[in-house]
């Protein structure tokens, strides 16, 4: 059975609506945004990044963008995972601690240094670490950086993930997942805003 298009579902785009017709004009993009979602959340091989880890990171990332149908969707996805429900309390606490406004961060020293903007350097709380474990704790810190201060990213962040037990392939998929969600949450928000402005 074909899965329903996730962006249409989250944006509330009904078959036959004006936005449905507009999205149909970029059919390859629509189908491959869907395939991106499926290959991240229903992968052929989850050996380097488990399904529960994927759901946990997704709940954190979308939650850090604020309340939305997208955040609710991924929170429910985590809750539906047999190993995920026990992580919900810790993730809610980490979202509350990590909420801020971005993008901020620093540029390489030079003419752009005047644009450097300070902001929260998020670290997982000691209270949440036992529930999350070392791999997810490292992933959450990197996910927060990717959401709010991607220009701060450094070589050392890769080493931290490797040291926490992430494989190179796992880091690639993890980075894709966070980056994809940064796209998906914005497409959904943009399409919802457009639909409301056309109503």
């Amino acid at each position, binding site marked *: 059975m074909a899965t329903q298009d996730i962006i249409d579902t989250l944006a509330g785009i009904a078959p036959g609506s004006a936005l449905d017709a507009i999205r149909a004009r*970029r059919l390859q993009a629509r189908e*491959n945004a869907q395939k991106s979602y499926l290959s991240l959340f229903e992968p052929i091989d989850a050996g380097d990044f488990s399904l529960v880890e994927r759901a946990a990171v997704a709940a954190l990332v979308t939650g850090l963008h604020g309340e939305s149908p997208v955040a609710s969707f991924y929170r429910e996805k985590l809750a539906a995972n047999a190993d995920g429900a026990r992580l919900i309390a810790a993730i809610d606490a980490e979202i509350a601690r990590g909420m801020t406004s971005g993008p901020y961060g620093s540029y390489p020293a030079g003419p752009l240094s005047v644009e450097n903007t300070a902001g929260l350097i998020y670290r997982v709380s000691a209270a949440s670490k036992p529930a999350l474990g070392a791999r997810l704790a490292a992933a959450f810190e990197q996910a927060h950086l990717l959401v709010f201060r*991607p220009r701060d990213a450094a070589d050392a962040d890769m080493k931290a993930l490797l040291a926490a037990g992430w494989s190179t392939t796992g880091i690639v998929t993890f980075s894709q997942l966070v980056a994809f969600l*940064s796209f998906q949450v914005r497409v959904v928000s943009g399409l919802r*805003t457009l639909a409301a402005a056309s109503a």
Partner: protein
Amino acid sequence: MSTVNPPVAFTQDELGWVSWIDPLPEAELTERHFNGLVDRARAKSEYFRLLVRDPEVLEARTKTDKDIFYNVADGLPRAERELAAAATSRYNGCIYCASVHARFASTYSKRRDDVQRLLDEGVKADLGERWNAVVKASVALAATPIAFGPDNIEELRRAGLDDAEIVDVINGASFFNWANRLMLSLGEPSK
């Protein structure tokens, strides 16, 4: 690893990109990887040989990207899709992505000086009503929490964009929130 000479300013010059973690060696690529690369020539790129460690995600990402930017049978002109990509990259701080898409915006618009002002002055540069509306919408979408609202739609409409063109802005700007985060976090640009 080769010597890295990171750029310290936004530029339309061609830049290289060096990975911080190990790409797959070209000799290890299989048909599954080539499917993920979509274009076989991308096997020469360190960036794509890194992303191809997850070939299914890379293939879907690449096809999404290509349709959003290259499908110009209708909708927003390519120049303004590239402008949305460049503005998003300027705002998020991705010097590499901004260089590529600023060049494309210049090529397709023939407004190289205006594109350079976006890079030099930032996303508040005054580029005329239509470009200002596209840049402002892209910036509002890139903010976290997302700041895109009815005012952005109104400005885009006033600047002459129809709803299909506005969806192209939303897609193009949103896609660069994906691309910027990969380029910024897995390696760095080099002159």
